[in-house]
């Protein structure tokens, strides 16, 4: 368990956990560049973080990063000295050219690439990123994803073995990193660790390390959705759909920041899927009331998004937007062109049928959508919609 952290990021024990965790990738990068293999270096850095939480309150270091590097390097040497890994390490250092000095931003970026390496499964990449780049403990990650700590420990060490042969200085693909960060943001449970906030922190850190419009696009997308978080659920936990959210509770500071980042990214004329998604979120954020939403522009962005991704889920969301822009009949026509086995197809059909005045069909489709709902909150919401329509008949 982590101690509660106040706004300055200083927990009750007097340790600035936010600072500590922001230093993690840089420290790990230095160890790897000194010739430590990634898996052992990562363990050593985790040990150093634990040691910092213990030692810093009584004896705060003047140079926190230097302190962590020293302690982690010592832990690494202790761990490797006794066994044959030492010989392997020395051979490794002999074989490869001495790494030249490199700016910390490069190390951080390389770590993101390594932890999102295409040889990893999505769940392994997520776990490894949260630990090696995010500085979270195995226990925190296990709690966040509701699995036993032993299982998460195995998932992480297996992930480390998978990337053991990957050279640290190989350039990676930003798109794979963005997919991992998107998963952390979008598919988190609500445990002790705020995964959405952590995803934003990691994406900010990535944006500082690489200048890329899609990184900016993803960061904007996260900020714009995070801004609506307080209004997305009722006090009893029930889902509140976008049209019914109390817009006064949206975080205008996050919206302004998201819009600004998005505009700068779009100005560079290298459109990608995250920028397009963020543009849709920005148009929603821009409307003072649901009725004032610029649905025509939103449909245009969905067209872009469908062109970029070819995703049938995007076309499903587009059908909703068409229903708002051109009326429910047009929405139903757009829907008719899609495969009815798509997730949430019946929920969209129910909504459009109700707007078209066919309450009986809508009630039947809402009940069907509730049976197929992938989440508890959606199932409850859809069941209530069906019940509302059935009660009114």
């Amino acid at each position: 368990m982590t101690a509660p952290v106040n706004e300055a990021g200083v927990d009750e024990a007097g340790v600035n956990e936010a600072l500590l965790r922001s230093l993690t990738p840089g420290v790990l990068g230095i160890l790897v560049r000194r010739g430590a293999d990634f898996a052992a270096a990562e363990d050593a850095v985790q040990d150093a973080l634990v040691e910092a939480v213990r030692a810093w309150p009584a004896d705060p270091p003047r140079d926190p990063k230097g302190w962590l590097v020293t302690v982690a390097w010592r832990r690494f040497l202790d761990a490797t000295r006794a066994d044959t890994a030492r010989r392997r390490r020395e051979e490794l250092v002999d074989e490869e050219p001495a790494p030249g000095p490199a700016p910390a931003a490069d190390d951080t970026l390389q770590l993101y690439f390594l932890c999102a390496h295409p040889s990893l499964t999505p769940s392994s990449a997520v776990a490894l990123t949260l630990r090696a780049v995010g500085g979270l403990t195995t226990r925190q990650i296990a709690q966040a994803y509701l699995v036993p700590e032993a299982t998460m420990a195995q998932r992480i060490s297996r992930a480390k073995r998978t990337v053991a042969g990957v050279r640290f200085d190989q350039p990676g693909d930003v798109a794979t990193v963005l997919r991992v960060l998107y998963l952390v943001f979008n598919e988190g449970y609500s445990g002790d660790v705020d995964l959405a906030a952590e995803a934003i922190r990691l994406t900010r850190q990535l944006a500082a390390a690489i200048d890329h419009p899609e990184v900016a696009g993803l960061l904007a997308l996260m900020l714009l959705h995070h801004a609506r978080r307080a209004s997305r659920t009722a006090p009893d936990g029930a889902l509140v759909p976008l049209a019914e959210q109390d817009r006064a509770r949206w975080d205008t500071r996050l919206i302004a920041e998201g819009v600004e980042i998005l505009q700068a990214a779009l100005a560079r004329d290298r459109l990608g899927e995250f920028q397009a998604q963020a543009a849709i979120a920005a148009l929603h954020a821009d409307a003072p009331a649901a009725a004032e939403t610029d649905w025509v522009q939103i449909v245009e962005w969905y067209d872009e998004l469908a062109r970029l991704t070819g995703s049938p889920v995007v076309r499903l969301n587009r059908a909703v937007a068409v229903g708002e822009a051109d009326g429910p009949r047009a929405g139903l026509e757009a829907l008719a062109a899609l495969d009815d086995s798509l997730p949430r197809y019946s929920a969209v059909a129910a909504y459009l049928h109700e707007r078209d005045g066919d309450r009986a069909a809508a009630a039947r489709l809402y009940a069907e959508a509730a049976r197929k709902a992938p989440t508890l909150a959606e199932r409850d919401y859809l069941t209530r919609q069906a019940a509302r329509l059935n009660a009114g008949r």
Partner: protein
Amino acid sequence: MAKYLLLKHYRGAPAAVNDVPMDRWTPDEISAHMRYMQDFADRLEAVGEFVDGQALAPGGTWVRYDGEGRPPVTDGPFAETKDLIAGWMVIDVDSYERAVELAGELSAAPGAGGKPIHEWLELRPFLTAPPTITE
């Protein structure tokens, strides 16, 4: 990253291929079966996909509320109950295909004659937390 329940039924599932009741197996066959189940759980943990595994006693009691100030009513077990759950395993995997693959492996646990039972297991997805981004 989705959780699935692998449900094993004492009865109620379609008949297995190697459908011999456990009390007709040899003690060694029973040991081999138990070892297979344990090894399977250990292997799942080693690849980071294990969440939980439990076995249930066959006999249960039905309980219901009986009104304010009254003790709950108990009844059963009912002999005619068609479906009887023997136990479960919860897994956390990357895809539905992986969940099916693992259920298939578990269903290959050895039974009579040391041959796979080929028993039917029920695979049920957990309802998850809602995604943040929906539109």
